[in-house]
């Protein structure tokens, strides 16, 4: 797979989960106890043998640079190839700043790259996928563009791209919908194409005033290209709403999904932190939960996810909650259907409760 260049586009619409993306892009939302969302696409690329990955940086790039750093943790700190960043170049007028414009400004990098194919993706999708299968599909169908899609099997309440395919896999329709029905085929926002097709689409559509790769590029050029849909039937969740984030997190408490994402397939890499093993004290009482290294537990935890370095004191009760890195829950506090962002402190005896369909969010660094 070192003939495939990975491109991760972080210009993603993050207004839909604004409570946890006020200071970070979707790509660095903490997830599953120790990961950031970008870990899933990045690890899938690396595990598929891709050794050259370009990251198209968004506005709030600090948390991205801080998370990825040298790329070492994904084995992408390489003398040649490896991780690199695409930035909008600011020396021209600032009008028409867009995803397509950034691609257009960086076309030379793509032109010079030795890879034959480009795998383009966002970073808001949770999956663990071997792209070698997608490449094989792409080559076998002789597709110009292969779009990955999945069947959520449940109604999606947030905006998504729904596609229709003919029997042979050819895409016959692409639509941007506010929501999708239970039986819809939903695009994962991941595309495989030759570098040549990618360059053509970017040049053609940007030079004609386009701004969005899907809307102004692919969707207007369906007549030009053979676009195939490739269905992925493993676990997929595209996170673009707060409820989606909560629901996907709770999915992980299903051992089958936990195993599929983390154990049975290639590993998901993330920035390593050298935490100590989780410590269970004599009053610990934990059921049906995911617990990360560095936690110290003296209370009750049920149906919950604890990130690294969370401290649960005596008498605490936590149910159906997500507690991010560095939170401190003092004696006898009680949380139900709550998402605590990083470094939240809940004082002794406090009681917080959200609804199952509308979890309560406690912002980063808050002391309650």
């Amino acid at each position, binding site marked *: 797979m070192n003939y495939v260049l990975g491109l991760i586009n972080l210009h993603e619409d993050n207004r839909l989960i604004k409570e946890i993306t006020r200071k970070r892009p979707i790509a660095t939302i903490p997830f*599953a106890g120790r990961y950031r969302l970008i870990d899933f696409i990045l690890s899938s690329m690396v595990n598929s043998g891709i050794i050259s990955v370009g990251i198209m940086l968004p506005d709030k790039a600090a948390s991205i640079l801080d998370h990825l750093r040298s790329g070492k943790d994904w084995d992408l700190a390489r003398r040649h190839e490896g991780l690199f960043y695409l930035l909008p170049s600011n020396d021209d007028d600032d009008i028409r700043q867009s995803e397509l414009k950034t691609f257009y400004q960086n076309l030379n990098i793509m032109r010079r790259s030795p890879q034959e194919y480009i795998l383009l993706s966002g970073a808001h999708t949770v999956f663990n996928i071997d792209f070698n299968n997608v490449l094989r599909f792409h080559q076998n169908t002789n597709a110009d563009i292969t779009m990955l899609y999945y069947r959520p099997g449940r109604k999606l309440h947030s905006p998504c791209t729904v596609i229709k395919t003919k029997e042979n896999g050819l895409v016959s329709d692409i639509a941007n919908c506010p929501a999708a029905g239970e039986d819809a085929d939903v695009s994962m926002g991941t595309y495989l194409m030759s570098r040549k097709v990618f360059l053509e689409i970017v040049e053609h559509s940007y030079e004609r005033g386009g701004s969005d790769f899907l809307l102004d590029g692919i969707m207007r050029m369906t007549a030009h290209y053979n676009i195939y849909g490739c269905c992925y039937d493993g676990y997929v969740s595209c996170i673009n709403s707060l409820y989606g984030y909560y629901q996907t997190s709770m999915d992980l408490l299903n*051992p089958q999904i936990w195993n599929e994402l983390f154990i049975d397939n290639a590993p*998901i890499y993330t920035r390593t932190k*050298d935490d100590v*093993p989780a410590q269970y*004290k004599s009053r610990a009482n934990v*059921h049906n939960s*995911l*617990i990360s290294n560095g936690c110290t537990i003296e209370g009750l935890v049920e149906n919950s996810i604890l990130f690294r370095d969370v401290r649960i004191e005596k008498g605490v009760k936590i149910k159906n909650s997500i507690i991010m890195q560095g939170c401190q829950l003092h004696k006898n506090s009680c949380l139900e259907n709550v998402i605590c962002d990083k470094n939240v402190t809940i004082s002794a005896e406090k009681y917080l409760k959200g609804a199952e369909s509308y979890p309560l969010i406690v912002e980063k660094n808050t002391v309650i």
Partner: protein
Amino acid sequence: MKTECLAMILAGGQGSRLGVLTKRVAKPAVHFGGKYRIIDFPLSNCSNSGIETVGVLTQYKPLELHTYLGTGEAWNLDRKNGGVYILPPYAREKEADWYKGTADAIYQNINFIETYDPDYVLILSGDHIYTMDYSWMLEEHKMNKAEATISVIKVSHKEASRFGIMTTDRNGRITAFEEKPKNPQSTLASMGIYIFNWRLLKRYLEEDYADCLSEHDFGKNIIPKMLADHVRLFSYSFDGYWKDVGTIESLWEANMDLLKETPSFDLGGSWRIYSSHNPLPPHFIGANAKITNSLVSGGAVIDGSIKNSVIFPGVHIGKKARIVNSVIMPYSIIHAGAVVEKAIVAENCEIMNDCHIFSDNGSITVIAEGETITSIGSDNKQVG
């Protein structure tokens, strides 16, 4: 490539006192503390102390240690100059000379050390569990204008005869040294951590090499010789947790030391212990699990009950299985209904349903790497 101070870790012992745990791996590669290996401790201490050139002197079964250390990245030791080097016995014209003792091991690597032209050499042992900032010790070494400094710890009078015991004057200068004395004059025990001025040590190593009566050992030969020559030998007092884990009993005890309500040794804190391991997700605790006074690591799946135990990454504990006072090393599977009491279960073992691992006489049961235990009862144990 001038380096002020480089470290040499003596990791060469066959570790036969650790029995079946060292059948396939060298002693420093033995697992400890829920996610570490023994060698993580000296390596992390070096890295955190700013010592970034480390030689690991290994003699037996270096392969697993070799692949474990890799580029040294996990310990921040993948440096352009320096970094971590595995040093097996140096190949001579005709045949390899095995390391004949701790001093000989350093002697045979004089060329390696000279590459870095160090002022000081720090000699460490590969089988002790402790955290220590060597840069403080080096600071004291310089302040004392010492030629050699030995780190010491107070032990009980009873234990003293198991160690090398120092007597010091009021300035900390060592006046006498006895290796495993019957009637110890003091309770200051050598921790096997030495800083030497390299020029001086080199001379002593060369002399020692030529001495055919010598056992080529730091404690038995080099240090006594230096004392006799009135070399400026100082002690450096250490009062933290320090444990030799060279036996099954002490390895088990050191693991148990991590578990008390306020543990005698706390792995947390700002002094990070680095470790290289497979990327694994947070561990999964099932609906009927019950875990108290224990350490559990990533990727484990716990459906049974665990008490006073250390659970390594990727371990599976089945439903109604019960683990008490035990250490379960990576990727071992304890099936439903099995009971493990006061045991060390090495890597990749499988304890089948309803098996019972325990020992009649209260000793520690050890299950060797890769074993599958199928019969029910205590007969299947292998004492280390």
